[in-house]
């Protein structure tokens, strides 16, 4: 990945007025060194994703004051995400240059003191704002005054910084809103000689060289993607010259390039990266112009295939148009086109996809297959702030979904299909295990979402601790497997007689199976048990939530002005194809 030059971003940032955006984020940048240019790059990179990024850049090396002063401009800005970039030189001060002016014990005490200072900043920050806090860890310099003896030195300079980084990670691990950006890893990836330029540092206190600021911004953008819940869910991939070398229809099963020797090992390496993404929950699908029999034989039987049929949620291997195939994949998987990344070696196919289906992110795959793995690894579009159990099971769940679809096609009507599915809904309360997933679903669900209200984990935690709220989720299981937590409801108890449905949503993967009626039946039973007479709700239309449009009237709600009201006296029956149980 080659980044554009800094001047491009700085000038482009001045042209963003008047552009239309779909999302908005407020980003604060605090640091111990010159951060010029970073805000502009983030604004431009966000705008490319139709995100309006409003930035606040703290004063030069004023991060302590900004965080500790409750009236500071930082808090007035009300950030969604705050990045705190502190470099090793600043945190260590004179000790960065003269670590061995201190005894081993004093060096240990020094690091403990520094971590206490950071901990205090984090605590104060957490009390004053709901913003996520991303702190950079500290780069370990290659130079040591002890030279080659450094690695044999007890608690030497590198060990000191390592210890500081470990303690920082431990600190962040326990706090939902605090994240550590691995700046040390950034320096390792790009090289100390490239990231740190003495000329720029001494001349302008520039501690990340001007050509590397765009790469840093690229990494920081991952947190914006995670915060806004717009990460990609699915990779749709071509086969010939993409997943293996050559054309199976021409070169034959034994003639394709795939195996331990070059160039076949490039494709094996690429498949390994794809498998690692599948294992963390990215859905894989195939979109290939090929004879089905030729291609499926390779997928099922080739000794060096890493990805097998069970890893693909959808296989479109035919001679149809790739754009039509893509639309069918999105429909069958019930995901938006904007959740999909398309990978194809053929530039013509890529251009056709870009022009025809612009919401799909079409990856500009390098010509050289040895670079395929890197191209995927450099993407920040899969970034999430939390990986739940449901996420890691997602690939498997979608394969189960493919089997469900096959059953649906072979059954005469929806009712008998649903009966055969043997659907079981388990209603769970919001607790430390379910809150991350509940928040994630509110952030990511677009289609079957009544109000499209987005809530961070801290919001859900507050609701769950508030007696005025009823927060729950639904785990849905059927004969093919566990769909995981795929439904969420947040009900506000307005008064003794009336409840209000603040949020009601279902993941797209379980839509069309009457699960919503099972969940509503549960809310209704709770309401009845509490003597409630009316349940009020609002449908807030968005560009994507048409699938939930009829949910309220279908359950017996009646329109009253801008709201929908359900009278407890109405008749509502949970469909008999569902079993609903509360934890």
């Amino acid at each position, binding site marked *: 990945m080659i980044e554009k030059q*800094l001047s491009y971003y700085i000038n482009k940032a001045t042209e963003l007025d008047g552009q239309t955006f779909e999302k908005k984020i407020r980003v604060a940048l605090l640091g111990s060194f010159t951060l010029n240019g970073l805000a502009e790059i983030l604004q431009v990179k966000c705008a490319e994703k139709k995100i309006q990024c409003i930035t606040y850049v703290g004063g030069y090396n004023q991060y302590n004051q900004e965080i500790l002063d409750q009236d500071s401009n930082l808090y007035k800005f009300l950030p969604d995400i705050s990045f705190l970039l502190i470099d090793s030189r600043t945190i260590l001060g004179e000790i960065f240059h003269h670590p061995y002016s201190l005894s081993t014990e004093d060096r240990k005490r020094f690091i403990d003191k520094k971590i206490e200072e950071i901990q205090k900043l984090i605590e104060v920050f957490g009390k004053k704002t709901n913003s996520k806090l991303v702190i950079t860890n500290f780069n370990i310099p290659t130079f040591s005054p002890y030279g080659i003896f450094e690695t044999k030195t007890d608690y030497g300079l590198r060990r000191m910084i390592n210890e500081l980084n470990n303690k920082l990670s431990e600190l962040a691990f326990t706090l939902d809103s605090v994240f550590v950006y691995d700046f040390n890893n950034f320096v390792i990836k790009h090289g100390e000689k490239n990231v740190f330029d003495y000329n720029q540092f001494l*001349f*302008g206190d520039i501690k990340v*060289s*001007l*050509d590397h600021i765009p790469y840093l911004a690229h990494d920081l953008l991952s947190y914006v993607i995670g915060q806004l819940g717009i990460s990609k869910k699915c990779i749709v991939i071509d086969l010939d010259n993409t997943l293996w070398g050559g054309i199976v229809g021409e070169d034959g099963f034994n003639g394709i390039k795939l195996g331990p020797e070059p160039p076949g090992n490039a494709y094996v390496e690429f498949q390994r990266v794809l498998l690692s993404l599948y294992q963390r929950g990215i859905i894989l699908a195939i979109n290939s112009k090929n004879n089905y029999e030729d291609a499926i034989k390779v997928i099922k039987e080739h000794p060096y295939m890493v990805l097998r049929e069970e890893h693909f949620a959808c296989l479109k291997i035919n001679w149809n148009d790739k754009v039509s195939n893509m639309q069918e994949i999105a429909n069958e998987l019930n995901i938006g086109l904007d959740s999909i990344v398309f990978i194809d070696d053929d530039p013509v196919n890529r251009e056709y996809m870009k022009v025809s289906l612009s919401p799909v992110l079409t990856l500009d795959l390098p010509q050289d297959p040895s670079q395929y793995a890197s191209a995927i690894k450099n993407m920040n579009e899969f970034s999430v702030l939390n990986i739940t159990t449901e996420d890691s099971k997602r690939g498997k769940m979608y394969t189960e979904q493919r089997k469900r679809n096959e059953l649906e096609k072979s059954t005469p009507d929806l009712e008998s299909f649903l009966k055969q599915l043997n659907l079981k809904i388990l209603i769970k309360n919001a607790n430390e295990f379910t809150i991350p997933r509940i928040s994630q679903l509110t952030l990511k669900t677009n289609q079957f979402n009544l109000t499209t209200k987005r809530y961070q984990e801290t919001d859900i935690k507050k609701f769950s601790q508030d007696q005025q709220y009823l927060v729950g989720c639904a785990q849905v299981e059927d004969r093919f497997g566990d769909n995981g937590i795929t439904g969420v409801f947040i009900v506000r108890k307005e008064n003794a007689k009336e409840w209000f449905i603040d949020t009601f949503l279902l993941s797209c993967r379980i839509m069309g199976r009457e699960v919503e009626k099972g969940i509503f039946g549960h809310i209704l039973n709770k309401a009845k048990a509490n003597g409630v007479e009316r349940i009020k709700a609002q449908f807030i239309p968005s560009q994507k939530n048409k699938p939930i449009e009829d949910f309220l009237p279908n359950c017996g709600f009646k329109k009253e002005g801008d709201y929908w009201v359900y009278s407890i006296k109405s008749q509502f029956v949970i469909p008999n194809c569902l079993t609903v149980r509360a934890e």
Partner: protein
Amino acid sequence: MSKRLYDLISRVMNVPASSINDDEGPESIESWSSFKGYVLLYELETEFKVKFTIDEAMDVKKVADIKRHLSNHGVILND
């Protein structure tokens, strides 16, 4: 070659290339902030494959200074 230099300054400072001449500098071009000055030097280094010394970097007060330092690094700018 001067055109190549003026085009680069124009792009970095976001001003028309026609407004650049050897006497222009931070005093006369409003967008030429100290930070943009660093950006300009870095992009000159990339474009002309040279590395300025810190003395040269600090010495740049106008376009003519850039030309002089580029020339010291063997970059010939024909008008």
